[in-house]
């Protein structure tokens, strides 16, 4: 089942800026979906369209199979924006109780639910403190708590860890992994590629409003080089290999040839075949998300 679906979604702002050009996207139930792209790629515009903050110029967007204009679809989602703007006159506890009311939590359960979430994000000690006295990191954690107030089936996170220190960032990732294990669908926009790589099942890369690539990391990543191990290497082969970009290491009776790219790997394979060297094993290295990302985007047009 598709939790998020967009078809030919376009958004042109007043003044003619094309923020989104025909985005087709599907996010399935239970998956963690990373939405990547450089600044101005159209990620935030997509989120704003999904939450019905703005209207598409063309195309459609749906959540849980219903148009995003239905306010009831938001009963099943939680949202954490990049800059968390909260009502500063509440205490942390008061704010969560207010949001839980809006999210449809029964009055009798609001206090319990708020305390539970404050504990989960590590803010129980600051529950009675005014939000105006919270630090940026505390606000971000409170923002996450409000996003989880209705136990959502879909969580939309826009740069969720931008204000967090490394410890809080790790705690945050642990919460995401818990939610993932519980079957929550997570749609996450982030610049921190290592973070996305560690939690996401699928990613989409967007640039200048166009979808460049989408799929699982396995589908998107190609071979990024290899390490070839051989038993015996004739002197002529050593000389020939030294002339390539491969890095040769001779250790006892075993030699390893590290190839940093697939082209170098192919050169090495050809040379070894020419010299009749028997290959012991080949360990292929797959592309990291960072390599996939930079491979997908056109850096000249971004800059």
């Amino acid at each position, binding site marked *: 089942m598709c939790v998020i679906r967009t078809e030919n979604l376009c958004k042109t702002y007043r003044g003619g800026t094309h923020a989104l050009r025909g985005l087709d996207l599907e996010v399935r139930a239970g998956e963690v979906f990373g939405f990547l792209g450089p600044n101005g790629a159209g990620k935030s515009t997509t989120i704003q369209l999904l*939450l019905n903050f703005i209207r598409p110029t063309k195309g459609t967007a749906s959540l849980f199979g219903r148009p995003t204009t239905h*306010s009831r679809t938001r009963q099943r*989602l939680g949202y954490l*924006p990049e800059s968390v*703007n*909260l*009502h500063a006159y509440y205490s942390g506890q008061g704010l969560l109780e*207010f949001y839980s009311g809006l999210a449809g939590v029964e009055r009798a359960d609001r206090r319990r639910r708020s305390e539970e979430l404050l504990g989960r994000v590590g803010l129980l000690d600051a529950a009675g403190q005014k939000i105006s006295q919270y630090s940026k990191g505390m606000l971000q954690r409170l923002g996450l708590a409000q996003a989880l107030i*209705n136990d959502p089936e879909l969580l939309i996170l826009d740069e969720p860890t931008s204000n967090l220190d490394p410890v809080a960032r790790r705690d945050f990732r642990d919460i995401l992994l818990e939610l993932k294990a519980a079957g929550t669908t997570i749609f996450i926009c982030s610049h921190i590629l290592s973070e996305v790589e560690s939690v996401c099942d699928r990613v989409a890369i967007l640039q200048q409003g166009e979808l460049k690539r989408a799929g699982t990391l396995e589908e998107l990543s190609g071979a990024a080089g290899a390490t070839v191990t051989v038993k015996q290497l004739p002197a002529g082969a050593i000389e020939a290999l030294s002339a390539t970009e491969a890095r040769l290491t001779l250790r006892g009776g075993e030699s390893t040839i590290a190839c940093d790219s697939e082209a170098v790997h192919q050169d090495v394979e050809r040379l070894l075949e020419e010299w009749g060297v028997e290959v012991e094993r080949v360990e292929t290295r797959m592309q990291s998300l960072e390599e996939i990302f930079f491979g997908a985007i056109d850096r000249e047009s971004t800059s």
Partner: protein
Amino acid sequence: MRETLLIAGDSIRALLHQRLLVALMLVMLGLTAAFSVAVTEMKESVLQAAEAGAEAQGTGLDEEGLQEARQQIDMAGSFFLAAFYWFAAFGGTAVTLFICCTAVATDLRRGTIRMVLAKPVSRTQFLLGKYCGAIAVMFSYSALAGIALVIFTRSNALELGPAALYSPWLMFCSNLMVGSAALLLSLLVHPLVAAVIAFFASASFFSSPNPLHFILPSYDLFNVSSLIMQGRLIAMEDILTLTLYALDVAAIFLLVALWRFRSKELL
């Protein structure tokens, strides 16, 4: 309904946080005290003038002179009562313009509107909640003004004229119209510009041949200052008609505001 009430409660909480209601009470207190001092001084000066007049004629202040002085005091008392009402009504309009022009604009500026509308809250519920919160504050203000009016008349031994009895209600009705106009305009233009337009968008500012005289609502119908001065009474039917008129105008503005807000992009 629950969402609307929660947002209304939140709006009131935000205004309390700005100490707006406390400031209103202090203004009312200050107004009552200032007018009381003025009335006391006026009474003394009228009596002193009457005594001085009698002394100049070589006679004491007789019953007839005293009666004349009392009449002058009553007339001046009505004037002060009308002026008191006028200031209170003007203050109420200013407060209404402030609350309604900033109701949505502040949330938009701070970005808190996105947090609320990401919850299962429709835009209609949001705007109605904001308006209900504003209504509650407007009603509180009118009630405060009514109490201040009673305190003022009692403390100065003035007679609470017939028109003064229903003046706080008419003040509230007038503010309902001004408030809904301000709310609508704040969705179209800058809140400050919206406040100015909403204040001057009254038929009373345009004379009869001007089409705006017939299109715009008339806030002047609700200003009972002159009736207070004349000690006249409005019939209950007229109060009912004015109430319905205010509700009608407020509903029209509110419906247009809802239509506009539903399609507004929250950038």
